[in-house]
């Protein structure tokens, strides 16, 4: 489903989606209309440096042109480092970081997210950590640390709290991951 935007040679503006920028505003990219496409964000962006098709400036440009499908079919937004160089440098206080996040929120609602993201989300729900290695107990023990860190992985009640919060967010209505009440301590 997600493919490189390099396959789109011609962009058909008549197929653009009206109201896309408004949707982005509602999803957190509140100042997108302040963008003047000056390119300061692109000049600092690791995505641009690494050769991704859609870095901050081009994502904003595509949104302003209503090109939702183009962005939904491109992986770049998920490679955003959240480094905030763009937000630091933007002369119009657009906060391009928030626009990248808003675009992800739109993509998630169309189920256009990579498997690695789903894995992290599932792990956050199941154990309270987006990154989790079940085999970490042995190296921890060898270093003289308890096998489980003093976090949600060692505390069923704490994990239940995190899960209770997550079940009251839009994650619960999206159905991206199974959200039972068990996690690693169940069954």
């Amino acid at each position, binding site marked *: 489903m997600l493919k490189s935007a390099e396959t789109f040679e011609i962009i058909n503006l008549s197929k653009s989606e009206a109201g896309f920028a408004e949707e982005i505003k509602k999803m957190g990219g509140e100042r997108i209309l302040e963008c003047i496409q000056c390119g300061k964000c692109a000049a600092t962006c690791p995505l641009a440096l*690494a050769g991704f098709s859609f870095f901050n400036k081009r994502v904003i440009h595509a949104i302003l042109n209503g090109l939702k499908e183009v962005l939904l079919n491109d992986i770049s937004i998920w490679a*955003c480092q959240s480094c905030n160089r763009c937000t630091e440098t933007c002369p119009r206080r657009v906060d391009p970081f928030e626009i990248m*996040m808003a675009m992800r929120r739109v993509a*998630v609602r169309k189920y256009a997210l990579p498997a690695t993201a789903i894995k992290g989300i599932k792990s956050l729900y199941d154990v309270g950590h987006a990154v989790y290695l079940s085999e970490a107990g042995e190296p921890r023990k060898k270093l003289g*640390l308890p096998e489980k*860190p003093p976090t949600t992985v060692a505390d069923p*009640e704490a*994990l239940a709290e995190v899960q209770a919060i997550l079940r009251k*967010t839009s994650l619960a209505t999206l159905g991206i991951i199974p959200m039972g009440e068990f996690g690693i301590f169940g069954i």
Partner: protein
Amino acid sequence: MKVGFFIGCNIAFNRPDLEQAVRYAFPALGVELDDLEGQSCCPTWGTMPSIDPVGWYAVGARNFAIAEEKGVEMITVCSTCYGSLAKTTHKLQTHRETRNRVNRLLKSIGKEYRGTSRIRHAVYYLYDEIGPEKIKALIKHGLERLSVAVQPGCLSLWPSEIHPEKEADIFHPKILQELCELLGASAPPYSRFLDCCGMGGMRSTDMEKSFKLVERKLVAMKKELNPDLIVTGCSSCLIQFDTAQEFLQNKGKINFAIPVLHYVQLLAVCLGAEPQQVAGLARTPVLHVLNKIREG
């Protein structure tokens, strides 16, 4: 002095030797660590921030609530945790409606965000709270004749507007460099100093592009400085620089290996820690450098 230790996923599960370094270095500097039992993920960018902002802030606020109950601030050695929790603080302290929504969620689990704690980056905490003089006085092994390439990491720097503790010139950071120099090392500038390491969302999305960034930076370090060590303030940079080199060597892209440490690991060894304990999980060999430091 007491502070909550916000551990973070990558440290707890990927690099617990860094966790051990924190547990050694801070008490050695007179700072007692609180475990903040029941803490969770910050949460990181690819999870709730990419789905539901209120859910993001609520998971973060729950972590703050744990610290508030204990009356402590939190420190982290992970710049992602720092960035996510700092953005949470900023939002909750500047946006009343979001804060109310978050507190309604927290109320259902018997918690409340009051805004009395904050997240502090270990590097700034060392510099601002403990101070170079005190660190210097407690050093057992110095780094004389050692040269390091400094890798500050993104999220401890930007966006500076939301960080109470920051560099004087945000695009010319100096603090990590100064912290290395006070241990006795030289930490000269190099051309790609501010480049991103390529970890994070980029590495999980496109490893080839991610490794292209780290390769370019490694080559600049090697050519311009030929350093004994790469020293970073961020656990993600640590993992990227440490694990990418083996891969790049196998691919024939680089023909060198530069040992990589988080600053707190290096500090722990200078304060007397056993190298194996605080840096034993490095993939790019580092113990030979650390053992030499201990021998003086």
